[in-house]
Structures are given as C-alpha cells and as structure tokens.
C-alpha cells in the first residue's frame, strides 16, 4: 500500500539519517499498525523526529513492561508517542503502548532519591544513558527545530534528510520556496502543483480526522506565511501583479502566498494575514488571562500575560515547597483517595479555605497567604533561605493582582 510505502520510506529515511536500525524496524512495525501519514501529520509537522525517537524507545519499553532501571530516561519519551497514537484514535495499538509507557515514565523520578547525593543534576544524570540511539535522537529534534523555523531554501538542503519526515509542512514550504526563487510562476499551475502534492500526502492519510487536516493546513499556512514574509523581502525584484488575490479569504491563503506579486503587495498581504493571526491569538489569550477584558493594546496585554505566567510558575514553586515540607506520608490507599479527592472535590476544598468557586481559577494565590494557617506551621520550623526567597517572590504578584479585582 502506498501508505505503508510512504511510511516505510519515511521511517527508513529517518533511520538512515539517524543511523539507527531499530528505528526503521520499529517504524515498519508501527507503520503497519497505523497510517504513516497520520503519524507524520499528527504532531504539528516535523515531529516525526520525536516520533521516531519515541518509536524505538516505546518499542523497547513495551518489551520491558515493568520499566527496569536501565530504561528510566526513555520512559520520559514514551508517553508522548502513545498520546500521539490516541490522538489518531487508533484503538488497540495505542492502548497497548499507552500503559507501559505510563508505568515506565515515572520510573525516572523515583530513581532520583535513591542516590541520595547532594547534587540534583548528578542524580538525574546518574542514569543518563549514553545510548547512541538517544544521542542521535536528541540530535534529531534540533534538526526539527531548525526546520520549523527555516522553511527557506537556505535550509532546503538540510531539509533533504528530513523532508520525508516533515512531509506535509516542510515539503509544502520548501518546494514552494524553490518555486519562489524561479523567475515566473503563474498562480494556477503552482497551486495545482502544490495541491497535487498535498493531495498525495492527504490520500496517504485519508483516515486521519478532519481536524488533523485542518491542523496540517494551518501549519502549512503558518510555514508558508513565514516563508512568505521572508520571500516578500527577498524577492522584491520578481514583481508580478497578482494583487487581485489580496482580498482572498483564508481558504485561498495558499493562493495568496503563491502569487508573489509586487513587492509591496505581497509584503503587505503577508503582513496583513500575519497581523490577523496574531490579533486572533491575542484575543484567545485575553480570555485565558483573568481581568484582561478591558485591556486593548498588544503591549499591555503582553505585560499582563507575562505577569500571569510568572505568577503561575511561582505558585507551582510555592506549592512544591509546601509539599516538600508537609507530607512524608503517602501510602497506596491514600493515593487512590487522593486522586478522587483532587479531581472531584475541588469545590469543597476551596470552600473550606474560603475560596469562592469563581475565584479559584483566577489568582487565588494571594488569598492563600493570609488564610494559610497551615502554611505558617511548616514554614516556621525550617528556617530556609530559599523559603524566604520563595515567599518574597510570592508577594510579587499581589500588588498587580489587586488591580485585577476591580
């Protein structure tokens, strides 16, 4: 089948590029288990590097069900891959791979305290596995990152290895990049060519869901948008009047990008589309960050977003410090009770501590400080400098938060 061939080719290329035979073997196995195109498209383009890395590791992990001590780091890689599988709604294989990876993942962390040394990084690295597969696999994401950002013909040669992996998004962009470089291209043949390419890839993954296709198209458009911006600045001399597509709707965005147009036109087109995207994302972020409904303006909005992310990260640190001091007693039974409590009785817990349910989602942190009688007990006993630092840092969001409670 074409899908299998593509998948095998893709995995073999990956294997050849990374020099790992197990990857190609596991890739073939997985290629038959699911459509390869779906794998490649599932993760926002150019993720098959991670996919391949997780492939070999997940295969090895599925063999060692219990997660031996030699496989802890690979377990970190495993859950991403089965989650990819579940994304594509492939039933049996995904569930099979999902559970051992979940079991295996955590094996990484429990090894940390067993060494008992002072340096944490030493603990982590003490079972760092210098497997060649791991090293080369971790080299692949670097290429992935480079490809994601590039999308230009400058990196097209680098993309040559990875193009089969980054099939949809990268191949969409780099041939377009090459075509951009040529002198004259009319919009329709270019679009038909690209559509033909795209349809080949799409046919290879016909069973993928619609949202995946949209995601991939969106990623294509993002990539092409990036390259369009770059091209618009670089190929100003290739002026062609395709500005009639300026008002093209988003479904014809590919037409917009293909028509290189005159320098100002293509540049302004790309800029306009880009600005629309950014404002749309900013609107979504505005809904997420509490208290930003009245803010109009990207700069202020960005400041609020940065503050909010910082405060959330500080809350995580604060809570982890609390956890470090509070609880040494976790039994197996308690864990089951805990999961139920944590996931379901948030409202009751919040009410106990005076949080309103509406407030629990938005900056509840400053209210935790005055009300935390339980906080004071564990905090007074260990006189910690880091505790003081955390506490002082925790007070940071308080003044800015008061403005949110208007």
């Amino acid at each position: 089948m074409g899908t299998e061939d593509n998948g095998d080719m893709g995995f073999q290329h990956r294997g050849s590029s990374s020099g790992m035979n197990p990857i190609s073997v596991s890739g073939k196995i997985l290629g038959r288990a699911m459509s390869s195109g779906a794998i490649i498209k599932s993760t926002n383009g150019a993720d098959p590097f991670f996919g391949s890395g997780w492939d070999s590791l997940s295969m090895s992990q599925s063999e060692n069900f219990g997660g031996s001590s030699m496989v802890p780091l690979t377990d970190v890689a495993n859950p991403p891959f089965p989650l990819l599988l579940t994304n594509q709604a492939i039933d049996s294989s995904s569930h099979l791979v999902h559970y051992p990876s979940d079991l295996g993942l955590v094996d990484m962390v429990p090894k940390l305290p067993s060494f008992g040394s002072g340096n944490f990084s030493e603990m982590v690295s003490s079972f760092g596995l210098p497997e060649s597969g791991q090293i080369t696999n971790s080299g692949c994401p670097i290429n992935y990152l480079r490809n994601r950002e590039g999308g230009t013909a400058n990196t097209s040669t680098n993309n040559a290895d990875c193009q089969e992996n980054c099939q949809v998004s990268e191949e969409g962009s780099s041939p377009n990049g090459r075509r951009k470089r040529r002198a004259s291209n009319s919009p329709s043949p270019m679009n038909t060519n690209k559509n033909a390419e795209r349809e080949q890839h799409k046919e290879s993954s016909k069973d993928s869901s619609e949202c995946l296709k949209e995601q991939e198209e969106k990623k294509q458009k993002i990539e092409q948008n990036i390259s369009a911006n770059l091209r618009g600045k670089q190929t100003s001399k290739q002026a062609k009047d395709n500005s009639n597509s300026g008002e093209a709707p988003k479904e014809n965005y590919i037409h917009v990008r293909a028509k290189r147009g005159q320098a100002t036109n293509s540049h302004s087109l790309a800029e306009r589309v880009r600005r629309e995207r950014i404002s749309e994302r900013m609107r979504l972020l505005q809904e997420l960050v509490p208290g930003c409904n009245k803010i109009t303006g990207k700069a202020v909005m960005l400041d609020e977003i940065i503050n909010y992310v910082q405060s959330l990260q500080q809350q995580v640190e604060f809570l982890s410090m609390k956890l470090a001091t509070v609880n040494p007693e976790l039994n197996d039974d308690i864990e089951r009770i805990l999961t139920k409590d944590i996931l379901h009785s948030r409202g009751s817990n919040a009410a106990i501590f005076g949080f309103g349910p509406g407030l629990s989602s938005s900056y509840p942190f400053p209210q935790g400080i005055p009300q935390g009688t339980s906080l004071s007990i564990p905090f007074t006993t260990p006189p910690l400098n880091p505790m003081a630092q955390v506490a002082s840092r925790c007070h940071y969001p308080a003044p800015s938060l008061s403005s949110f409670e208007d």
Partner: protein
Amino acid sequence: MMTSRQHLTTNPSSIKTRFAYLFLRNLKRLNKYRPTSSSSRAVYQRYGMIKFAADASMASAVGSRRAWSRATLLKIRNRALNCTFLKRRRIHALRRRRAERKSRNPRQECAFGQANELRRLVPGGEVMDICNLLDETAHYIKCLNTQVQVMRNIVDFYSS
C-alpha cells in the same frame, strides 16, 4: 479561527487526570526514598525534586503534542545526558545552534518587544515566531492552571 480554538480546547480534564496520576506516583516514590527529612538542606533538595517531578509530570501528561512540552521533555533528557562523555560537545553545539536560530528567527518588533521575555518564560519559546509563541503560551497557561489546581488540592488534602 476554529482550528485555533480546537488547538486550545485540548481536553484539559484528561490532562488534569493524567497529571494528577503521574505526579502522585512520583510523589509517592519520592517520599518512599526520602522519608525523614528535617534538615533545611534536605527539604530544599526535596523541593527541587518535587518541582522537577511536577514539571516532568505535566510535560508528560501533555505529551509531545505541544512544542513547550516537547522542549521540556528534551530538556529533561539533555539534563541526564549532560554528564556523559558527550556533554561538553553537545552543550556547545546546542548553544551554537540556538544562537544561529535566534539570529535567523524573524522576530518582528512592532510592539512585541516584551515577546522576548515571554520566550524566556515559556519553555521552548526561543525559537518560535510570535504566532506560534502566543499559541503555545495559551496552552501553557491552561496547563499551568491545572497544575496549580491539582497541587493545591494535594496540599490541602494533607494539611487538613
């Protein structure tokens, strides 16, 4: 526009359950190996390990669907690989490549000067353009919220 909404609504309840499960298991094992810790230094070490476990569990719960979770998992991996014989070469290679990528990154200014700070906050944000960076930030904020909720519930459970 609808696709971006689909990106954002990636089922936080399941992420929450996965994160809770992973984090609790990690906590249990951490506690098993270090039951008695009264000294301040031990508590600080435990704090670091718990924070690391929280971030790792969160990144694993999200999987590799998001760039920031991929970057976190990659960082965890590289941390472990740091003390191998390839350590120095890889670190320098990574830094060189990051510098190249930063120079090539089309960072538009136009009222996004603070975007650089946001890049520092969101893991893996150094190599993204503004559009993807905002997308990743939205998902990261949602996951941070769930993380804070779960951790707070755990703490409340133990302190009550």
